[in-house]
């Protein structure tokens, strides 16, 4: 499934011949599904690991809010809270 979709991507997107995007395996914990489903469409999930582990819960909440308000991510309030909680617990300080 994954290979097929990436083959379609390669054909349609006409990106230069880049290797398949490596899947980032974030920590297994409640909320991970929300993170993968909401965040991974626009950017690699490695942005989360890269920005760790120094953000406070308020800091991660501000990042999620920025993604919604500034970048237009279509994330509802419940998912936003689940994502911010997951990030603070697993990638926060």
């Amino acid at each position, binding site marked *: *499934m*994954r290979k097929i*979709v*990436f083959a*379609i*991507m390669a054909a*349609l*997107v*006409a*990106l*230069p*011949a*880049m*290797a398949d*995007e*490596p*899947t*980032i*395996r974030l920590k297994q914990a409640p909320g991970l*599904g929300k993170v*993968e*489903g*909401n*965040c*991974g*469409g*626009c*950017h*690699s*999930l*490695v*942005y989360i*690991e*890269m*920005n*760790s*582990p*120094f*953000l406070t819960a308020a*800091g991660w909440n*501000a*990042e999620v809010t920025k993604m919604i308000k*500034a*970048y*237009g*991510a*279509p994330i509802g309030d419940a998912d936003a809270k689940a994502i911010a909680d997951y990030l603070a617990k697993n*990638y926060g300080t």
Partner: protein
Amino acid sequence: MLTRRSVLGAAGAVLTLTGSGWSRFSASRAAGAPVTPGVPSGTAESATLEALPGKKPLIRLAYRPPNYEAPLDYFRSPITPNDQFFVRYHLSDIPDVDAKTYKIEVGGDGANGQATLTFDDLKKLPAYEVVAVNQCSGNRRGLSTPHVAGVEWGYGAMGCARWKGVRLKDVLDKVGLKPEAVEIAFNGADGPAFDKTPDFIKSLPVWKAVDESTLIAYEMNGAPLPHFNGYPARLIVPGWTGTYWMKHLISVTALTKPQGGFWMNPAYRIPVGMFPVVARFVSQENATSTPITEIVVNSLITSHADGATVQAGTVTASGLAWDGGYGIATVEASTDGGKTWSEATLGEDLGRYAFRPWSFAFAARRGKNTVTVKATNKIGQTQTATLLFNPAGYHNNVMQTVTLNAA
């Protein structure tokens, strides 16, 4: 029909479905990425060395959008080869642009007319060259204390190339500017993965746009621009940070009102009065923040990584110094933690916007030795001893110290 954007949007869902299909970055790979000491531990653990098409291995901070920085040992000459030049994108939809169909739309309410330039049209205009440093505004963000969110760059989100192209002024002369034009705005062919995300659009004050050194470049170090550095043509804004150097340039728009949008405000802002910058972007200033403009004076030891082992006796440290275009006056080095300073020897001068090489020989004693460097430019600006903290982690020009262990 799937569009590029919907396909990219689907990638996240794919990752969700097949999350176990790919092994996690192994620790050994992570440990192999020569990240700058001081970046967040999560950055050090997740970064890998990886070669993009047409590039030598760079430190991959993120794959999508691609953000890759150069390791320290790529900075041992004042010109950065094209295949070693860093890669920085804000948005994930990065098309392959065909020079045959490429065009730049020139116009706007601050222009007297409009024009469309093809790649051939650009090539027919008078060509100029400039050697200039392109440094990401966020270079060294990863060294901020406390750490701040963003792409956690170490030392390597910069490079210096010989750029060849046409003067932006000559392109603007094709349409003519109205007296009330205040800014020139730029867009590139790349765009967001999701259509609600603001496109990356930047502007310059007219005075900087019409500076004779501001170019639309189609050559980099004598070759076409690499895809990942803005093929087929990009803006070159010598002295100013990389945010203004629009890649895959497709529009040049003269404005009678300041450019709005996320990428002008709140992004790419510095606190008013914090940094000793001369170049101002007055039409975008407000009471508390102002756009980042020129590069602050800086230097880097590139001959030795921090903690390197050397032989006791004469050791030559070398590296680069650069600034926003005033020119490097001196580079000084200290081996006693900054109590006393000696002048380093400056190398080849490739122009006021270029990396300036320097070298400094000293007697290394057995055990620990430290070397601290600071550059001063021709208007007397120098590097700071301590970080001027700002929320976006910009303008870090803290003097660098390396420890060398002499055996």
